């Protein structure tokens, strides 16, 4: 099977620190790949390259076999790669609908849109509401509620819904459960599986081994700026995975 997203020989240096050292990455259609690694292993740099937030010094990224170059997150987004950042990247004072359409607002048809550049709020609100209820995040009474009035899990839900609404090819989730309680994490994990069932492949970055082993189809173990190995969660235990990523145990031959 040809990977939908493929990276080869990525290098990223920050001064004397080499964050990515000839790193490879593969994501197959319809799967969830978890990326695990110790702190400072270069996970974030890898994800930032794939999401367009960082431009690699060397190497290339192939989307559906086609070479792509991202110079900003907008480029990646235009190609159908959506990222949910750990910080969620939402404007707390703005509404749910405003946040979901930030940077890709819809304008009214006709003169009001083209000359007066008026936003089509009704349409944006409707789509936002539809997307949230599609993912079972409904019971929203007020889509114009400011994001800061939502709980952590609700915000995460809105962020995932935003990604799912626009991410046609790949969704990247950076530590989606790190800041959440047990119950909220559970809901977000279900959301992730739900998104996969729609056929959208997901890259999941997480430190939480139970979560990783529960939802991932394959696990990419990152160590010292490169891919150490890719393991199947059915073949290995969580302690094996931790041993690989910390270097306590020799990695299996890839």
């Amino acid at each position: 099977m040809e990977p939908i997203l493929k990276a080869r020989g990525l290098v990223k240096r920050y001064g004397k620190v080499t964050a990515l050292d000839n790193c490879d990455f593969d994501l197959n259609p319809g799967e969830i790949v978890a990326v695990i690694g110790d702190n400072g292993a270069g996970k974030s740099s890898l994800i930032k390259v794939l999401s367009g937030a960082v431009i690699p010094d060397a190497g290339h990224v192939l989307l559906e076999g086609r070479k792509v170059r991202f110079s900003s997150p907008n480029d990646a987004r235009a190609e159908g790669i959506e990222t949910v950042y750990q910080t969620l990247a939402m404007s707390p004072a703005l509404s749910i609908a405003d946040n979901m359409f930030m940077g890709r607002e819809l304008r009214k048809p006709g003169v009001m849109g083209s000359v007066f550049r008026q936003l089509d709020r009704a349409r944006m609100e409707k789509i936002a509401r539809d997307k949230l209820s599609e993912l079972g995040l409904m019971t929203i009474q007020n889509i114009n509620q400011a994001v800061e009035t939502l709980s952590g899990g609700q915000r995460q839900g809105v962020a995932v819904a935003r990604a799912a609404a626009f991410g046609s090819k790949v969704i990247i989730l950076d530590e989606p459960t790190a800041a959440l309680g047990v119950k909220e994490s559970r809901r977000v994990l279900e959301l992730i599986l739900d998104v996969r069932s729609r056929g959208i492949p997901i890259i999941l970055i997480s430190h939480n081994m139970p979560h990783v082993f529960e939802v991932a189809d394959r696990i990419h173990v990152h160590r010292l700026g490169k891919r150490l190995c890719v393991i199947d969660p059915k073949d290995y235990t969580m302690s094996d995975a931790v041993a690989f990523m910390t270097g306590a145990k020799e990695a299996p031959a890839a």
Partner: protein
Amino acid sequence: MSDKTDDYEAVVQASRGEAVADFSKARASALDRVQHALHVNPALVPLVVLLGSIITFGLLLGTKFFSPFALTLILQQVQIVGIVAAAQSLVILTAGIDLSVGAIAVISSVIMGQFTFRYGVPVEISVAIGLLAGTAIGCVNGWLVAVMKLPPFIVTLGMWQIVLAANFLYSANETIRSQEIETEAPLLQFLGTTFKIGADADGRGGATFTYGVIFMVLVVVFLAYALRHTAWGRHVYATGDDPEAAQLSGVNVKRTLISVYGVAGLICAFAGWALIGRIGSVSPTSGQLLNIESITAVVIGGISLFGGRGSIMGTFFGALIVGVFTLGLRLLGADAQWTYLLIGVLIIAAVAVDQWIRKVAA
């Protein structure tokens, strides 16, 4: 997966009856509701204060204050500050501050005057050059803030001094007298043109407006529309709220910031034009307090100095509140210092309210 011994989440999975993302919330107390209303509509506080102060002075002074003439006089007195404060609001919404607004207004008016009188440039073109100069200075501010990543306070503090000094050097500290302008280039005084509604036969009393007042209202209405109903407006709020988040969610933060400072410069240049209409002459020493007065109007108007919160209507009300206090206290015969004292109290009260509004139940 089979050796997952500590399956602590199974418990949760079983009892997961209710939806986690339940957005409906019972708002219990009346205070919560007030806070929510203010959060959604931050211009409410200054509006209430404005109406309250008009009613109070109206009761104290009767028709001396509560007449079309006196009330429109307030509008005339606040027009320049009102226009500049509209520009200041834009900048403060992006969590910045613009100390150079007054200097930009003055140098723009000086450029309009000097180009007309020193170089004999047709007055229409001089005005256009003045407006362009203001926009250009604003864009430089924006470039330094957005691209060079310098703090707005420092950038505009420096720009204030630079522009003010350039203004004195360029104009050689000369004033262009009102009569000269009237006879040779009346367009410079265009925004000072007055018209009356409801005056008596001798032309006294009645509501008196200037084109500058109309222009101030138009600027406020236009900006209110742009901020609320265009993508650019949403980007201004998002940038002020959290620039990193805005950038990651697809807003071009640099372009937004430069456009904000540029538009602010343009509006200040218009204020410079209105300033010629208001004082009649082109004076390089006018408008020295505009930066502080505009910030005052913005703060009293409930726009958060931390960015991303508040509305341009609030600023408009804030400018009017200052005008109402100034005229009202003068008509009462109070020492002018009482005005400053009360405005000081209002500023601190406004920021206290802002902090309270920010404390939303998470």
